[in-house]
């Protein structure tokens, strides 16, 4: 297996750029939505064959074990070329969790298939009555002989209809403090008793789903980590998620569109526009500095503390400011659905705008992130 870290940063960056240019499907550049599995399957296979599916995983499990500088180069080249995010929750989230908390058997069973694309993962956390107050979740897993029986309902599960497996939080003890009675499970979505129903979002996409569990029987080996340890596991995973969400990559997509449209409309000659553009451009550049600090910290193997919440807030709010401005410079075309042609520049204004809307809601809303920072970082009284 190639040791990518042995390459010089420049060589690695060139390799990445050439690879994306020659292999990435042109129709999927800058798509401004979550890509579906059927669209990304072929690209996944190419990444897999190159050994580039999991830049963040250690090499012993087939990852790239990429050091910080090259990770940034890879992300930058993906962003530059407009490479969409594949259904990658297995890589970014459940993979690292299985490595940290799973048994040897779970690692052998799930990690190789997650890399190859045999297993596609979705996340079962939120419930209709457990959103910001996630710990009050009611989906239950009750041990009956050598099985757990799961009952309940999950919601806002992204791309569940593309997934083969779900990782979920379920209540395993009702007698203790709400956070202390939750466990972490991995479940094959083919298991009898599971029903998936897509939900149409504001953009008109069926990106997230409801997932119903009705007497779903899973083996004891579906439990990851210790019983009732699920909340801590999920929290460990949330900091991975916040680092990933905090990447400047998605706002950069939108900024590139903004720049292209602004050039096509001659807006860089308008000082009023330039001032507003400069503000969002620098919000994004400075986000990269903030992000870089957390990446360095993660790469040194240090745990990411509650400070990571500020990265999510700033990244998502910056992203929204960029897309707000994008719709505005689209003028009349900015409110017309679909890809618009602005003097030869193609832009899907509304899709970009809609895509950024839920960013301050999912993964812990911006208000919840502020609560976390106030309590655990600023140590303000409760």
């Amino acid at each position, binding site marked *: 297996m190639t040791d990518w870290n042995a390459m010089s940063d420049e060589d690695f960056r060139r390799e990445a750029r050439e690879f994306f240019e020659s292999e990435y499907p042109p129709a999927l550049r800058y798509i401004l939505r979550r890509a579906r599995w059927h669209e990304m399957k072929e690209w996944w296979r190419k990444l897999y064959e190159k050994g580039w599916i999991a830049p963040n995983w250690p090499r012993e499990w087939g990852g790239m074990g990429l050091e910080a500088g090259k990770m940034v180069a890879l992300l930058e080249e993906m962003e530059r070329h407009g490479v969409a995010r594949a259904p990658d929750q297995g890589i970014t989230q459940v993979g690292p969790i299985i490595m940290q908390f799973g048994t040897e058997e779970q690692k052998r069973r799930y990690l190789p298939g997650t890399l190859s694309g045999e297993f596609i993962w979705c996340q079962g956390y939120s419930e209709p009555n457990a959103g910001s107050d996630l710990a009050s979740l009611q989906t239950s897993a009750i041990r009956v002989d050598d099985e757990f029986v799961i009952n309940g309902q999950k919601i806002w599960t992204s791309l569940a209809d593309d997934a083969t497996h779900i990782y979920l939080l379920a209540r395993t003890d009702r007698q203790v403090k709400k956070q202390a009675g939750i466990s972490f499970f991995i479940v094959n979505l083919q298991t009898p008793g599971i029903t998936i129903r897509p939900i149409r979002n504001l953009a008109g996409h069926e990106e997230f789903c409801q997932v119903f569990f009705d007497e779903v029987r899973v083996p004891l080996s579906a439990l990851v980590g210790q019983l009732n340890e699920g909340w801590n596991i999920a929290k460990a995973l949330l900091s991975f998620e916040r680092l990933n969400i905090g990447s400047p990559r998605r706002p950069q997509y939108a900024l590139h569109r903004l720049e292209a449209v602004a050039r096509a409309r001659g807006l*860089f000659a308008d000082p009023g526009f330039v001032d507003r*553009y*400069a503000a969002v451009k620098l919000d994004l550049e*400075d986000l990269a500095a*903030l992000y870089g600090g957390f990446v360095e910290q993660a790469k040194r193997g240090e745990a990411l503390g509650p400070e990571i919440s*500020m990265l999510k807030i700033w990244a998502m709010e910056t992203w929204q400011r960029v897309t707000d401005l994008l719709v505005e410079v689209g003028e009349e075309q900015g409110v017309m659905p679909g890809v618009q042609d602005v003097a030869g520049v193609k832009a899907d204004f509304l899709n970009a705008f809609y895509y950024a809307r839920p960013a301050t809601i999912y993964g812990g809303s911006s208000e919840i992130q502020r609560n976390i*920072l106030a309590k655990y970082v600023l140590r*303000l009284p409760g």
Partner: protein
Amino acid sequence: MTERLASRSAADGAHRTLLADSVTAFTGRGADIARARRLRGSSEEYDRAAWRRMAELGWLGILVPDTHGGLGLGLPEMGIVARGLARALAPEPLVASAVMATTALAGGGSEALKREHLPRLVAGETVPVLAWQETAGAWDAASPALQARPLEGGYRLTGVKRFIAGAAQADVFLVSALADASPALFWVARDTAGVRLELEPLADGRQFGTLTLTDALVSRERVVARGRQAADALARALDYGAAVASAELCGVAERALEISLDYLRTRVQFGKPIGSFQALQHRGVDLYIQKELAGAVLDQVLEALGEAPDAASRAALASRLKARCSDAALRVTRESIQLHGAIGFTDDCDIGLYLKRALVLAGWLGSATQHRRRYVALSSENGK
């Protein structure tokens, strides 16, 4: 190669920690601003004894090569000192003199002037400041109006320089001028015939100087740089000045936030500390995010500035930094007044002094809006 880099960065870490400790010892652990209060509005503006102590600690020589008696360190180290001093609102002209005038002199072409004055500057014996600006809002104007007419053995300088920070106790001015339609920098002693200095008060109790030169005679030996070299030295001095002023803005923001968070934890209304109210918690968090963001940009840019490949990318970096830190410090200090309520609007409460320092640092060396425009003009095809 990697090993050398690793050991260099370990050494960097060690001496930076020592530096930070010495600044904390200098200012008092809680960033004591009693000295700043005492000196504000005084005609001396700052404390010459404190300046000499700063020299003894080596801080004035951080950017001076060791061949001229300095420490030969870089902007990250100067940033540590500036940030720490700003926490205590130190009034000394670290940026104006130890960064800007020093960088301009060191970047000049006169080896004789450097040999004679850099060691004196490091020792705190000579305090020069840069006098380059002529019009409000034109801090980086390429071409000065101040004329230097050549004559036998030297030049006669005529014109006006304004908004000169650190002028109150400066004994030398590095004056930018146009000589034969080409930029030049002159070493002008304060007591030169034909030089008049007036001082005007600033919001933070310090002063700006206005320097009027009327046929002031400066000998050829006092030419710091000419032509391209003068323009380059000045541009570098301004970028470094903006960068280290940004470190001061970070120090101001950081300390103002600490003071305000302490207030939120202790001030009781409705039977509870006001910091327990979500509306105020979220405001506090937003200020914290601005402070952290500014700090992240500061660390990144101070490391990168000294190794910028060309003047345009150096200027773009400096502008990015000054824009962020100005906005962050202004926002933190303005909202800190609000978090304090009525007491925050009194002169007795320290928080207002932080707002005033932030105002001055944000308004000096280019406002956030100016820097954002310059960044766009320099950094991409979009500006052209």
